[in-house]
Each structure stands twice: as C-alpha cells, then as structure tokens.
C-alpha cells in the first residue's frame, strides 16, 4: 500500500549549491515528518516544494499516489501551511483575519471560541493584530491552522516567538492531530518532544 504523502528522488539546486539530492520520504496518517538541519540547509525550501510552490530539479511529491502537480487544488484543500511569516493582516483583527481564511475553505465544524480559549487569545479578538506581540500573532496563526481542520499540517519553525507554554501547547496540539489520524511535516532546529511515530529527514 502506498503512503498518503510521498516524495521520490527530490533534488533542489539553488544558484550554485545543491540543497538536497535524491531525497525521499513516505508519510502515513498519524505520522510526523521531522525536517532537521542547520540554518540555510533547505528545510523551508523542502517545505515550499511539498506545498507545490517551488519547482524541483527532479522528483515529484505524491498525495494519495497521484502527483501533486496534477491535482494542486485538491492537495491544497487538504493542507494548511504555518509559514515563517504568519500571513495575517496587521490592520485586521483576529476575527476578520480568520473569517477571510474560512471563506476559502469548506465549512469546518470547529468552534472558534473554544480554539481561541485553548490558545489563550480569547481576549484579543477585537484588537488589530498589529498591536499584538509576535508570540500572540503566532498563536493566531495556530488558530487559523486549527480552524482549517485539514489532514496535513506543514509547520515551518512553529516554535518561533512562543514562550515555554506555547511550545508545549504546539506539541500537544500536534500530538492530538496525529492521534486523530492527521499528518504533520515539521521543520525545527530544536528538539521536539512529541509522542508519535516520527520519521526524520536530515538535510
């Protein structure tokens, strides 16, 4: 049986340097793919390649056994990407930002109030995001990820700007997501303490 998300023979060349060559992975529901490497080793590039935003030199990413490039929209409907930059509008408040995101996706059965409470941002709903701290903004980005309610999470350095509790919360949320049969691709240079099947890709 083929895995849900696979990459085969991935090669990426950036300028003069080859970031990775012939890289492969296979990810099944409930598993975490951990991308490890130093700064500039190509973690974010690999993640962008998985999201279909970066064309690779060679190789292909497959979702349900079909190349992602042939079913981009279906694949994008199944993933949410927590990027380094939050992708939220500083002039809008939390509710306005999340309402925009949810308008692009099928109606998910997730309670916004409960998500906000869990992430400790319930009191910040009416403030423009510009006035929040970097850590609070990251929590709003996490809220967007939870609201999307999709099987595949791409998380690029999710612990940036978060306090110790926040980091613990991210790990808990990831564990819950994996326990529900979700999948997660996580790039981090810190150690993660997540109780699940972890597959590692060293870059």
């Amino acid at each position, binding site marked *: 049986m083929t895995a849900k998300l696979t990459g085969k023979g991935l090669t990426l060349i950036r300028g003069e340097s080859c970031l990775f060559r012939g890289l492969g992975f296979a990810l099944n529901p409930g598993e975490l793919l951990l991308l490890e490497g130093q700064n500039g080793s190509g973690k974010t590039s690999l993640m962008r390649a998985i999201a279909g935003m970066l064309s690779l030199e060679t190789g292909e990413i497959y979702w349900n056994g079909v190349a992602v490039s042939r079913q981009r*929209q279906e694949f994008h409907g199944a993933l949410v*990407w927590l990027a380094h930059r939050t992708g939220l509008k500083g002039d809008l408040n939390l509710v306005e930002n999340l309402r925009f995101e949810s308008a692009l996706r*099928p109606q998910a059965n997730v309670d916004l109030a409960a998500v906000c409470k869990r992430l400790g941002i319930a009191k910040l709903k009416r403030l423009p995001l510009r006035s929040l701290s970097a850590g609070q903004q990251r929590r709003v980005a996490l809220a967007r990820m939870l609201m999307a309610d999709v099987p595949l999470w791409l998380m690029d350095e999710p612990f940036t700007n978060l306090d110790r509790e926040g980091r613990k919360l991210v790990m808990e949320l990831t564990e819950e997501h994996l326990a529900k049969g979700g999948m997660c691709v996580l790039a981090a240079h810190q150690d993660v303490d997540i109780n699940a099947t972890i597959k590692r890709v060293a870059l």
Partner: protein
Amino acid sequence: MSDSSQQQPGILAGLLAVTRRDLLLAWKRPGDVLNPLFFFAMVCTLFPLAVGPSPEQLTVSGPGVLWVAALLATLLSLNALFMGDHEDGSLDQLLVSPQPLPVLALGKTLSHWLISGFPLVLISPLLAMTYRMSTDVMGVLMLTLLLGTICLSLLGSIGAALTVGLHRGTALLSLLILPLAMPVLLLGANTVSLAAGNEVYATGIWALGAYVVAALSLAPFATAAALRISNE
C-alpha cells in the same frame, strides 16, 4: 477532520472573500485610496494654471491631459497591489489556498479597481469642468475612463505580479505595462476628442469594450502564472 473530497465553497466565494478583505483593509488605511485620487486631481488642476486659461487650448488638450493623468495615477497605485501581501506572507497563503489562483488574483484586481480606478471615474466630471467640457462629452469621458481603468487594473495586475519580489520594482512595472496600456490611452483620449469635436466616436468605445473583454479573460491567468513564478 474534514476530508479533502468535501464540497469546496464556490469560486465566487473566493473572489468575494479576497475583494471584501482588501476593501476592508483600504477602509482602515484610507491614505492608500486617496493617494492616486489626489495625484489625478493635482495634475488635472495644475495643468490649466501652467499653460494659461485660453478656452480653445484647454478644450483641445483636456481629453489628453485627463487621460494621461488617469493612466499615471493608476500606474502609481499598481505597485502596492501585491506588495503588502508579499511582505506579510499572505500571498504565500493565497498560493496554497484551495481556491483557484486566477480567481483570487481577479478578486485582488477587482478590489484594486474599486479602490483606485473607480474613484477616478467618479471625480473626472468635476475636473473636466476645468477644461470647459460640455456635459455630453463628460459622459463620454466617464464611459471611456470606466472601461479604460478596468483595462489598466487588469493589465497592471500582470506587471505587479511579475515585479512583486523585486525591490523598487515601480519603474520596471511601468515599463512592462506601458506598451500594453498605450492602446487604452490612445483609444480613450481620442474617443473623447472626437466626441468634443462632434464627430462619430462609438468605434472607440466598442474597441475599449473589446479590450476589457480580452483583458478580463486573459489577465487573471497571466497574473496567477506570474505570481507562481515570482514566488518560487
């Protein structure tokens, strides 16, 4: 957890969501809306002061000045079309959104036109009065500007998408767009001139309309492709 096969919201929902968000952002930062409008009004009112108030001269140069000012005002505002989204990462989020990118790009173009193109059309009669334009000709001016600004927003979105990753891409953006925008300028200004001279002008309107249809059907796809290329 929802399955990916679940029914997606219609494509109109994505278009409206993007447009609504951008209008909301413009509402919270009115400076962005007023800048091109202010530029347009300044050029159009300063020109008669500089060349002198002779009625013949103003009637002849009016359509051209108004149209050039509208074109430049639109070009000035284009740079910001994708810049903000690029800087805060929301452009990346649009690229991985489950909605088709051309539709989202069209939504952004629509809001750009509503914010910086449509207001120009609305205040143009006021400025046309400076050039002793008759009411009938004002109607033609508004109609050509209406069609013309739609064209310019659509064409401009391609250029804005291509130059989004570049610092100070404004000059390059203008250079890219000008050859495509030139027919719009010529058609627009000459149609108004013909109308002012009591000649047959309908051909120009039809040609502008055809340009709008062509741009509307091609530009969103070109913009989407350009966005993917410049965000690699």
